[in-house]
């Protein structure tokens, strides 16, 4: 645990750069700005009843916060976890310590989760406050939990992708998100069950104040998981652990060298 604490503190310290902090604020402000824009320019409030409005806000927040905000935050922190050490050539120092690779990746994973979740929580509180709907506490708690689960799962996924493809980590993470999470995750077939979005979406429908008419729509029957919320959380955590362990195993098996390429 001493090693984990060291990596966590070190990673946090070096994360506190002007660029990273600006990105954190941008991620936290992004859903708030969209909310303000919708309230200012959109007119769906005048055409729909309260229940429908709440549903629309719930969908928007789900897409913006546990979706875009968390994914982009994690993309910046988890995806280049291995690449950053290789580029800075500090991999050799850290990897040659006892269980160094394990502690390094676990520490970076935790920093990524904290970094993304805190930005999402800030965004949640401000956006829900700005939307002007009731049941704000429920919305905030649900979105915060969804954001934490999303940050945990996507950090593990991006860490794995970044370990497999350290040279183009962010590009491959984006490809994974679009192809697997958005395309495969929306296909009503067995394949969507291994995606993070499948479980998150089910939790979203279970937890957020959605209009019953919306829940009854046919499309929801095909893209939601069966089982309790507890089971969805269990599956999300299990997927995260699986991806994280896979990332650590891949990092151990790959012969990363921080030395100049071709140095024999």
């Amino acid at each position, binding site marked *: 645990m001493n090693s984990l604490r060291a990596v966590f503190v070190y990673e946090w310290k070096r994360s506190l750069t002007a660029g990273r902090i600006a990105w954190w604020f941008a991620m936290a402000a992004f859903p708030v700005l969209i909310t303000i824009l919708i309230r200012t320019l959109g007119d769906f409030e005048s055409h729909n009843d309260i229940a429908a409005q709440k549903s629309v806000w719930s969908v928007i927040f789900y897409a913006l916060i546990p979706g875009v905000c968390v994914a982009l935050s994690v993309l910046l922190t988890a995806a280049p976890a291995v690449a950053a050490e290789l580029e800075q050539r500090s991999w*050799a120092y850290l990897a040659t310590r006892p269980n160094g690779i394990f502690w390094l990746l676990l520490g970076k994973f935790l920093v990524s989760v904290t970094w993304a979740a805190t930005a999402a929580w800030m965004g949640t509180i401000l956006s829900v406050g700005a939307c002007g709907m009731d049941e704000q506490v429920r919305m905030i708690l649900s979105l915060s939990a969804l954001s934490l689960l999303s940050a945990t799962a996507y950090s593990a996924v991006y860490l794995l992708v970044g370990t497999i493809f350290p040279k183009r980590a962010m590009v491959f993470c984006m490809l994974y998100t679009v192809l697997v999470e958005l395309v495969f995750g929306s296909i009503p077939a067995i394949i969507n069950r291994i995606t993070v979005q499948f479980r998150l979406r089910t939790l979203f429908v279970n937890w957020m104040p959605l209009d019953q008419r919306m829940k009854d729509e046919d499309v929801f029957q095909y893209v939601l998981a069966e089982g309790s919320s507890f089971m969805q959380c269990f599956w999300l955590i299990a997927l995260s652990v699986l991806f994280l362990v896979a990332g650590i195993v891949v990092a151990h098996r790959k012969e990363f060298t921080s*030395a100049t390429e071709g140095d024999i």
Partner: protein
Amino acid sequence: MLALVELKRITKDYGGFRALSNVDLTIYPGVTGLLGPNGAGKSTLIKVLLGLVRITEGSGHVLGFPLITASDQIRTRIGYMPEDDCYVHGLSGIESMQVVAELSRIPATEALRRGHEILDFCGMGQERYRNVETYSTGMRQKLRFAMAIVHDPKLLILDEPTSGLDPEEREAMLNRIRILARQFQKSVILCTHILPDVQVVCDNVVILAGGSVRVSNSLEELCRMPNPSLTVTLSGDCNAYREVLMHKGIASEVVSLRQLRVFGEAEALHTPIWTAARESGCLVRGLTPSKNSLEQIFLSAVGGENHANS
């Protein structure tokens, strides 16, 4: 003597390229110079010892632990100073020390204390509180060395520890290596291209070329001439001096403009060397036992002329 490193028929392939080929190597305690031209396999050998790459064939032990299955125990006991200009970005010198010490399972407070102690040993002053990105080459080199020894390893692997250092800093670095080896009984594998460094600090030498071990022996043994001789530095007419020696039945050869190698046992040569100087009108400026130079040994080993895998 218990071997630190014992490798048996180690082969390492990178795809179709064979970086190490059937390496049989035993390294004993002390300071060992690991030499070889670029592409000889030195870096791969170091990575194999550290468990950073998997071997294709062979087996081995490092500090008594099996190479493949006990890399964690091996890493706990090895300190590695990479050749690259690598450091932990975004941290000060002392913070970097603390991180690597804690990663080596040293408690936080002890890691900080040890960090300061080692930085003091490495001659780093208040700059330890500065961000490492602002360090000069020499300071980075010192920090890398300090990070390698912070967890008190039994075996130190130093990859080009003196490259890029000014003469004063180089001497200080070599002195630190000497202190660690002599006073603290640390074993060191010194991987370098600077042969004079090896000459002044190493007890043993390993020369790699083309992925295999060409030479592995003690420096003293390697430098010993096949026939006993003395090197005489003269001022005056060297040819006249040689002629006088020849009349006395003593063979010699010219080493350089003012140096001769005189063959024979030292005890038997002392009197004729001085009398020949008086008779030829020369002055003896220096008299030392002749030795093979490390440069000669290196060149003949990598040139394939001397496969003295003794």
